[in-house]
C-alpha cells in the first residue's frame, strides 16, 4: 500500500468517525473528495510546515464548499497543521473545528471562513492577485461543489478571472452531480459545466475519475504546468459522493447525515486503520 493509499483509508475513517461522534456533519462530499485532498496536500502543493496567514512563498488552498470540513480538517491534521487528537472535538462547543471552517478560532491551515456558498472563488482570485503583486510564482488552489455553481457570485468571479488573466489559479469543481435535494439536473440543471467555463475564457480540464489517485495526480500536475499562460484553469472533477463507503456511494442521502453505530462499523470495516485513529 502506498503512503497516499494509506492516507485515503485513514482520512475516510476520520471523516465517518467525526460525523458519527456528534451525529452531525457532511460525510458524502467529504468522502468523494478524499483522493483530491491527499494528492493536493501531500504531493502537489508547495507548502511550509508552519502555518502563516499570508502564505508568502507557498501555494495556498481555499475550500469554498465549507460543509465538507471533515475531509479538510482530517487532511490538515494529518499534514501536521494541528494535533490529530483535536479531530475528536469536531462540532463540539469550544472547539476550533467548527461545523464549517473558519479563521475565527485560529485553526492553522484555514485562511477564510466558508460555508455560505459561492464566495470562495472570489477570495481565491483576490489571493492570486495578491501573489502577483508580491511578485510570487506560487499557485492558488480552490475547491467548489458543482451545486455551489448555482450561486451567482461564482459567475461574477469566473468572468473576472478570465477577463483579467488570473493565470495562477486552479479551481477544481467537485462534480458529483448531487446536492441536498437530489440530483443536480432535477434541482437546477447546470447544463454543460465545461462549455460554460470555456466560453468565459477558462482553460478547462476534465478529470474523469476524481476518486483515482493517479488520475487526480495527473490532472493536477497537468494543470500546474498550464499556469502562467494567461488563463485561469478549472478542473471538472467527476467524483462519487460517499466514495469508499459502499452504502453511501452515489446517493445524495448521505450529503449531510451521520452514520449510526452499526453503519459506522460497516464503514470502518471497509477502510482499514493505516495511520492510527485519532
Amino acid at each position: 500500500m502506498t503512503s497516499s493509499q494509506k492516507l485515503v483509508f485513514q482520512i475516510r475513517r476520520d471523516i465517518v468517525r467525526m460525523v458519527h461522534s456528534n451525529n452531525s456533519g457532511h460525510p458524502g462530499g467529504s468522502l468523494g473528495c478524499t483522493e483530491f485532498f491527499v494528492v493536493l496536500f501531500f504531493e502537489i502543493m508547495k507548502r511550509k510546515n508552519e502555518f502563516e496567514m499570508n502564505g508568502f512563498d507557498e501555494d495556498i488552498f481555499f475550500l469554498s464548499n465549507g460543509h465538507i470540513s471533515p475531509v479538510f480538517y482530517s487532511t490538515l491534521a494529518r499534514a501536521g497543521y494541528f494535533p490529530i487528537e483535536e479531530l475528536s472535538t469536531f462540532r463540539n462547543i469550544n472547539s476550533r473545528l467548527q461545523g464549517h471552517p473558519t479563521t475565527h478560532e485560529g485553526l492553522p491551515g484555514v485562511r477564510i471562513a466558508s460555508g455560505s456558498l459561492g464566495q470562495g472563488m472570489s477570495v481565491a482570485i483576490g489571493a492570486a492577485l495578491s501573489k502577483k503583486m508580491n511578485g510570487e510564482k506560487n499557485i492558488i488552489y480552490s475547491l467548489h461543489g458543482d451545486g455551489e455553481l448555482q450561486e451567482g457570485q461564482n459567475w461574477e468571479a469566473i468572468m473576472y478571472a478570465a477577463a483579467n488573466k488570473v493565470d495562477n489559479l486552479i479551481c477544481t469543481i467537485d462534480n458529483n452531480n448531487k446536492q441536498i435535494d437530489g440530483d443536480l439536473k432535477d434541482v437546477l440543471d447546470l447544463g454543460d459545466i465545461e462549455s460554460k467555463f470555456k466560453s468565459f475564457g477558462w482553460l478547462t480540464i476534465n478529470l474523469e475519475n476524481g476518486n483515482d489517485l493517479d488520475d487526480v495526480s495527473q490532472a493536477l500536475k497537468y494543470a500546474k504546468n498550464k499556469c502562467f499562460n494567461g488563463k485561469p484553469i478549472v478542473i471538472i472533477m467527476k467524483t462519487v459522493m460517499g466514495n469508499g463507503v459502499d452504502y453511501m456511494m452515489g446517493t445524495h442521502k448521505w450529503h449531510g447525515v451521520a452514520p449510526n453505530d452499526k453503519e459506522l462499523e460497516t464503514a470502518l470495516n471497509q477502510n482499514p486503520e493505516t495511520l492510527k485513529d485519532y
Partner: protein
Amino acid sequence: MFGFKNYGNNDTRSGFGVGLVEAASKNKDIVALCADLTGSLKMNDFKNKYPNRFFQIGIAEANMIGIAAGMTIGKKIPYTGTFANFSTGRVYDQIRQSVAYSNKNVKICASHAGITLGEDGATHQILEDIGMMKMLPGMVVINPCDFNQTKAATIEISKYNGPVYLRFGRPKVPNFTPENQNFEIGKGIRLVEGSDVTIVCTGHLVWHSIESADLLKEKGISAEVINIHTIKPLDEEIILKSIEKTGCVVSAEEHNTIGGLGESVASLIVKNKLVPMEFVGVNDQFGESGKPSDLMKKYGLSKESIIDSCEKVLKRK
C-alpha cells in the same frame, strides 16, 4: 458661529478620494477596488497615480468584496468603493462571512449614503447601512461629517488592522473641521460646549447641529454639540460625561432612527444614566427623488427638526 468657519462647500466623497491617494503614497500595500463607479467615488486620481494597484471589478459587488478579502492574504490593504447601498445590503453575507467573521483587513468605503443622494431616489438612498454594519461583530463603523474629516478618516483607517465601514456622501456640504486634523477612531469630538441639552450627531447632520445650537442660543438654550464620527466603537465616555451635565440628549443622523447612532446612544443611556432622549433621523421610511436639501427638510433632517427635538426633550427633563 462658535468659532466655526465654512472653508467652502465640498463633498465628503472628494475627501475620500484625496485621502485615499495620500494614504497610498505612504503605504504601498494599499490597493483600491471599484465596481464601475470610479468617477462617482472620486477614485480617478488613485487610478491614474497607481494603475497597478487599482482594480476595476465591474458591476459585481459580491465578487469585489470576496476579492478584497482574498487580497488581504498576502498583506494587501484593500479599499472597496461603490455606493453605500451596494456596499452593504447587496453584499451583506459576503461581508459577514468573508470579511467580518474571517477578520480581514478590508476597508469598505461607501459613497452616496443616505437621503442626500437625491434625485436617483429610494432604490439608491440607503438609510439602513449603519445598522447592518454595526451589528457585525468586530466591524468599525465611521461616518465623517465633512471633507476634511473624511480625508483624515480615510488615511487613519489604513493604520488600523481590521474591517472598517467608512460611510460618506454625495452633495457638497460645509467643510469646517480643521485641515490635516488628527483622526482618532472611536473618539468623539465636543464641537460646542453647552449645559442644557446634548446633541449627539454624525455625518451631514453635524453642521446642521452646530447651526441649531447657534439658533438655540438666541432662544437662551445652551446646547452641547458632540460629533460622533465613529459609531462603533462608540465613545461612551464623552456622551455620558455630557449628559451628566445637561440631563437630556438629542441624536441627529441621516439614517433610519431604527439601527442608527441614536439607538446606540439610547442603549448607552439605558445602561448607565437614564435621561430623556429624542431622535432626529428618518422615521422608518424609504426616501424618494428630489433635491437633497428638499429631501432633508421633508424627512425631518433639518435644523428645525433638531431645534424642535431639543425644545421637546428639555420639557421632559
